[in-house]
């Protein structure tokens, strides 16, 4: 499962909300940001690049894919 790093807790919640509409199951997780510090992201089973493309349609930027 891939972990997609997002900019904030709220953005992770927003990502999950929109991914549900695309029938993509996502779990919000707390993680460490690139360079350190607390951050949030969503864990997905699907191809993360495809998920990020879907998220870009709703103006959500993927910070990193792990």
């Amino acid at each position, binding site marked *: 499962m891939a972990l997609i790093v997002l*900019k*904030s*807790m*709220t*953005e992770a*919640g*927003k990502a999950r*909300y929109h991914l549900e509409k695309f029938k993509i199951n996502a779990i*919000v*997780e*707390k*993680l460490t*940001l690139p*360079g*350190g*510090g*607390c*951050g*949030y992201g969503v864990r997905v089973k699907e191809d993360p690049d495809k998920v990020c493309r879907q998220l870009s349609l709703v*103006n959500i930027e993927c910070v990193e894919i792990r």
Partner: protein
Amino acid sequence: MVYLDNAATTYPKPIPVIASMSRAMVNYGGNPGRAGHKLSMETAQAVFTSRLKCAEFFGAEPENVIFTLNCTHALNLAIKGIISPGAHLITSDIEHNAVIRPVHAAAKENGNSYSIARTTNNEDETVRNFEKLINARTKAIVCTSASNVTGKILPLKRLAEVCKKHKICFIIDAAQGAGVIPMKLSDGINIICTAGHKGLYGPMGTGLMITDGKFRLRTIIEGGTGSFSKEIEQPEVLPDRFESGTINTCGAIALGAGIDFVNEKTIDRIYRHEHSLCELFYNEMKLNNKKVKVYTDTYEHNRVPLVPFNIGSMDSTEAAALLSKQGFYLRGGFQCAYMAHKKMGTQEVGAVRFAPSAFTNRHDVMMFIKAVNRISTKNTKAL
């Protein structure tokens, strides 16, 4: 008891709001956006759900919904956030202290200044009065959506057009308007500041600052956000930038239930219901009680549902106290909006404010009318 002080805060709250608050206290005890454990994550999800409801209600993106303690808090974030040294702000002559005090305070520093636009019953004239005060240093128009004293609604869409034309920010105090008159960011408003506990039927201790993100605001409160913790600079990302410290989680969650209530009732039905009650009270007083002064010539539709009045020459606080003894709870005095009272001519005695809610019914108002008639007969001379 008949509660008619709903312009201060609505009471009672809808049962789902009470249930939501209670559920949040029991089930959502983790600190949202801080830890990664189940309780924290579930609380964060509940807060997000509420944030999304607020966003949809005002036509915003969820990240641009900032939970605040109240409308005053939201207005301070917006007003003090938009200014830079030498800034000029424009406000109106019917503002609540939640607007005029932070504007006045901001103007004491860094060469800032402000102007007050005269509002009139003529929309064209009101809009012109605002526009002619704009200068090269003007950063924003900050004004109420509707007066908490007279109920007068300002021409928001037209003022938004003026702001857009001059590339300045349009900030509104929606404490009295939200939930009663429709308003969206798509009306051209850049920042909506509102209370959560009035027309949105949420708990006290809740408010919102909703932005379209077009104007960067500096922060007036910095601190822990649960994000970017290694950085000493306050994060740029919203809502974190303006939500330092733990938010009123239970209140924010219950506010979502309040918004559900308004959506279910619909703004239009709530407005028409409350307006009809104001009209009932207004007409009874205007036609049948010459000892009561109501402060509008006619009860028009361009105002939010509230009626300021006085009983004879009695001080408004005294009148409110007499009504309270008979079980009718209203607010006298100046309602924290002395400017509006000066404009209305009640700068000496203030006024009693009749403010119904979605829960007030005609029977309540008829009982209230009888109580006002009793007090005015016993205690006053005709005006």
